[in-house]
């Protein structure tokens, strides 16, 4: 991957990382969108979508609830999509290492959001005297500073992740001898279990919820049997 491509992905990661919390929370940062966009930028939208579907199933259990610390899937999905479309070897091995890279980035991204929030707190504390007299310029300045810092966070995180993971992934794919079909099957089982358990945890308390799940599953399986 060339430096200009890394910078292009980093710019995309910056804007999608911003969408996670700061602005505008339109969920462009969801893996199914973010990874497809990264795939499109890298030359294959359908590869980006495939990586995005896997990551989306794993991200389904993450609720961006206020003060909790959670993995940041916006920049992570850009990294995952970019790693997958820029592969140099076997596609399934590349998918495995792209997923691994994306999940590690999501973990680090969650930590970077925590650091940003602490930083925002420090800036707000420092601005308290001006806030207490209702200084509108300081209010706007704090908001804009938060946006700029979050953009920077996403850019740096994506750029560093790609700079580090692209060569590592290439080496790992070259060394990897795992059976492609098995890897893909395990990835599907893991992603499906995370998505299924997430939906169950979110909704099983609803009246007849489990029955709706069983009904949907029966219909889905019936559609496959008729295929």
């Amino acid at each position: 991957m060339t430096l200009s491509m890394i910078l292009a992905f980093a710019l995309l990661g910056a804007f999608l990382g911003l969408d996670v919390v700061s602005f505008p929370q339109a969920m462009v940062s969801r893996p199914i969108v973010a990874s497809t966009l990264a795939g499109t930028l890298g030359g294959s939208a359908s590869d980006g979508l495939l990586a995005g579907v896997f990551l989306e199933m794993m991200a389904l259990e993450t609720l961006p609830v206020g003060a909790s610390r959670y993995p940041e899937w916006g920049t992570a999905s850009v990294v995952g999509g970019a790693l997958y479309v820029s592969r140099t070897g076997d596609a399934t091995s590349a998918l495995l290492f792209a997923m691994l890279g994306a999940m590690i980035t999501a973990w680090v991204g969650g930590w970077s959001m925590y650091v940003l929030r602490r930083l925002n707190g420090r800036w707000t504390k420092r601005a308290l005297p001006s806030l207490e007299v209702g200084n509108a310029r300081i209010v706007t300045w704090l908001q804009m500073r938060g946006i700029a810092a979050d953009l920077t966070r996403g850019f740096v995180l994506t750029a560093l992740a790609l700079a580090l993971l692209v060569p590592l992934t290439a080496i790992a794919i070259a060394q990897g001898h795992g059976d492609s079909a098995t890897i893909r099957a395990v990835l599907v089982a893991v992603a499906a279990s995370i998505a299924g358990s997430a939906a169950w945890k979110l909704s099983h308390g609803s009246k007849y919820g489990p029955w709706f799940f069983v009904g949907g599953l029966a219909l889905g399986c019936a559609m496959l049997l008729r295929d």
Partner: protein
Amino acid sequence: MRNAAERLMSTPDTRPLPFLTGARIFVRMLAVQSSWNYETMLGTGIGFSVEPALRALPGGRQGVPYHAALARETHYFNAHPYLAAVAVGALARVELDGAMPPAQIERFRIALCGPLGSVGDRLVWAGWLPFTVLVALLAYGLGAGPVLVPVLFLVLYNAGHVALRIWGLRTGWRHGMRVAGSLATPILRQGPEYLARAVMALCGLALPLASARILGKSNMPIAVIARQSVLGPHALVFLLLAIAALLGVALVKLHGRVDGWRVALLIVVLLALHSVAT
């Protein structure tokens, strides 16, 4: 400026929020969490969002009421970011009415935090978001491509997102300090329950179809054998769903103690090590 103030404050029961002021507030609300922090949480964002309305206070931006109100509105606040629109509308109305003492406005702000947080989390994060994600996964499972899947998700999700923010702002403005009653609207009260059922049904439907599309026709020996069975060409999918169900049940049982994505990360790491080592 005084005319604008009189117009805004005269009969807010019947008069809607002026379009330009409403538009400014709406755009600012999109950035309500930009300076989110563990001390004041959404506080600065609420002040930032409500500020265009405060300009209509007597004396305008230079007036004492404007500065006092803005200072108040930047204090601690926490709620769901979309439903914070209800608070922004209500606080704009209360500040412009000028009938409530400052200490009471502070108490009113704090009282809004809990309901707007819990209702929003249940309706959006635990309901609307997974629902729209699963619609997109279902579309993928049914064969939709890289344009339709993300576009379908974004259009569907944001139709609800934008509508909720606009509804919140208008409702808050219309009801002012009596806004709590509007949170008992059927969509907010029963919506999460209906969405939860839809999420369950969609999850059951989408997972087999999406898994089948990802797997395609596998050449794994077990898949070849399974294909000979009564389950046909997608036998491997059923097998994997059974394995996923076992892992899923374990994750549900460990809810609150182990995050699913951490378990997934561990399995992916082991798989990657196995792939490199063999």
